[in-house]
């Protein structure tokens, strides 16, 4: 895993990073692979009182209580269905373990600096603040998410705000 981070791109255009790509509805997203701890199926969650709709609840991950967020609800993309193909990406973000429900995990890809373009301002559901860029891979567009920034943001309500 580490090698993708470290080796310089052959074309000499910046360092390549590896991304885990997943789908939310019809859109393809990517997050830094180093933030991913594991991928597992969707299990019954315990509902948390008075939590926003996209926080599905908490699960027991080998003795650790882990909150589960559904990005489809948060980003308003796709239809939140829960079946045997629903996947939860368990991530390690800022020292916390958080699970993210997605429609499916596709691949791990390495993108070099010149394959990533800045995202245009769209006023979309997903604030461009949380998008590091748009990656292109075989004519496919990847929305690269800064998962740390996103998860620690106030609107996610996953972490206690400092102020």
């Amino acid at each position, binding site marked *: 895993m580490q090698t993708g981070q470290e080796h310089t791109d052959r074309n000499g255009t910046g360092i390549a990073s590896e991304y885990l790509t997943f789908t939310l509805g019809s859109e393809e997203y990517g997050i830094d692979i180093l933030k991913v701890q594991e991928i597992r199926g969707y299990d019954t969650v*315990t509902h948390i009182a008075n939590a926003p709709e996209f926080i599905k609840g908490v699960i027991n991950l080998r003795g*650790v209580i882990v909150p589960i967020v559904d990005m489809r609800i948060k980003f308003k993309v796709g239809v939140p269905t829960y079946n045997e193909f629903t996947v939860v990406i368990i991530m390690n973000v800022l020292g916390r*373990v958080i699970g993210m429900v997605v429609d499916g995990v596709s691949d791990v890809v390495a993108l070099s600096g010149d394959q990533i373009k800045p995202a245009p301002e769209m006023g979309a559901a997903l604030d461009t603040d949380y998008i590091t860029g748009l990656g292109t891979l075989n004519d496919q567009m990847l929305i690269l998410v800064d998962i740390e920034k996103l998860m620690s943001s106030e609107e996610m309500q996953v972490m206690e705000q400092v102020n």
Partner: protein
Amino acid sequence: MTHSDKNNNIDLNQFNQVFFEECAEHLAEMEQILVSLPDEGPDEEQLNAIFRAAHSIKGGAGIFGFQDMTVVTHVLESLLDRMRNHEIPFSTAMVDLFLEAGDVISMQLAGHRDGTFVRQEAIDLVRAKLQQVIDAGSVITTAESVSDESEPVVGETLKTDSTPPDKRCQFYELEFTPDPDIFRRGVRLENLFAELEDLGDLTVTAGLPVTTDFMELDPEICVCRWNMTLVTTASEADIRDIFEFVADVDQLQVRQVIEDNRENSCSDISGSTATVTEQQNHDPVATGESCADPAGAATGRRAYDKNELAPGAYGRRTSEAESSIRVGVTKVDQLINQVGELVITQLMLAQTASVLDPVLHESLHRSLLQLERNTRDLQQSVMSIRLVPISIVFSRFPRMVRELAAKLGKQVELKTIGDTTELDKGLIEKITDPLTHLVRNCMDHALEIPEMRIAAGKDPAGTITLRASQIGGRIVIDVIDDGAGLNRAKILSKAVERGIPASDSMSDEEVWQLIFAPGFSTAEAVTDISGRGVGMDVVLRNVQAMSGRVNISSEPGKGTRVTISLPLTLAILDGLSVAVGAEKFIIPLNSIVESLQPSPESLKTVNGRSVVHVRGEYIPVIALYELFNMDALVKDPGSGILILIEVEGEKAAILVDALLDEHQVVIKSIETNYRKVEGTAGATILGDGRVALILDVNSLLRMRK
């Protein structure tokens, strides 16, 4: 010699911590022995133990470079050594002096560890006092020590060894073959060499007795052997002292060599006795005095060996070193977590297998049964790691009682029963303060002065008993005194005076509970020991914070017993699981009063909010589904179940769909990976692997408002 100059910047901090811990242990041990000494003085074993503690502190301090700490310990050690050799007789005043010395060492230790202020004058004072005792004792030393020696030959040579007749320079050859792990133990050889150099003129050569392949060389493993020559006035015992904490006896060879015969003896490596004979053959002139010297060295060595084998003298290092290990609490907690997971997995397996035909899958069922037994045993063993004996707390009381008794002019005997009772480490730390308060209270208020006790026909010496025992899933600690007992009339009048509601019709138990009220004290005079009225309420609060209870029983003239009852561990909670809609919640059992199915006529509303009428009280109803914004099967209080709870005098009735079961649950934090959830005190994992939230009754009440 450059060895002492380089590598001095190696970070020793990680080793320092170990030294601090060990030093604190040695001090505690020393103190414990000192206060338990009988009046006629310590026996051989006790004296050795005190000496060993002082010696270990000195040695450790020296190795870790806390030279200031060696000053007091050195004098203390010298004095103890003389006492061991019956050169200085024991006197009771010494106990206080030793305790004082222990305090000074603690102060120095705290100074190094926490950077607290160290009073230099106290150090000097104690040192001077110790030296004074040594000097006073030495007057009779010469006459007594000779007659005291049981083995004349060894005694003679020992004497020549410790005080050489002439201060002539001796020539020593040292061969030091340390064990391979020496570097891992954090030993710094350059300090050792520096110390040797202080004794005299030192030359060191390092050698490799076994050649290893360079590629396989592990820098942490010591493969070297050092040959040293030392010209000094010091005795062999002094040299060996330096190696005390570094080398075992067989790892260090010390040979004393006569100047002229150095070349000859250098080639001889068969040991000191051989060297001696050779010298005697080659140098008949030196037979007189110089012959005694190598003999001294040889027997000195033997005398040292004898010391090493003396009961408990030095041997502890090797015999008990492996009896315990230090492990971080986080590691233990991790282990407990993992075993908890294993138990849940085992339960899941058992659940899955229960639907299989027992005849067809007999062996599977048998194995699962075995697995269940094994996991249960494993869980018990792992939980027991966190448990520590209560003697850790009890052991601090003898000294406190001794000093307080002297201060108050009372005679007090402290008894402890059930020292080996174990409870959770977290609880041990928290129970110390309440117990201290209770014991102080006993000493100050409950126990009478000797004259009063004699007048009352009791033993002039009062007794305080600390008793710990495990009863079911709880630990019960009693603090019992045979003093005057609680004064009912006085407590009642004091309560009225302080504006605490009280009446003569109250039962004894209710009256005793009054002393837990904040600011309550019946002592006529406020002393620095107790009587400020902070005490019993703090005791109660601290114990309640540990989910414990306090009870008092007292009989006038006979004494008082305060009973503290605690759960075995803080990590586990007794709870009732309830269902609301699809979710399960745990309600802590200690806040539940009762559960009831209300009759329609007992339910009323106040401003649209439900209240339930129970035995003359109107109690607000909290509907969990409303509070938590969720679906429930039962939304009408009349058809559900109400759980009556009480926290800090406030009552409420929680509406739930159904009562499920009573469990012991392991408390887990939600905040580790998420934020605080209002109304909950954490979460737990149920037998089916699912998460259930534990309700925080206190915050539920606040949420409703």
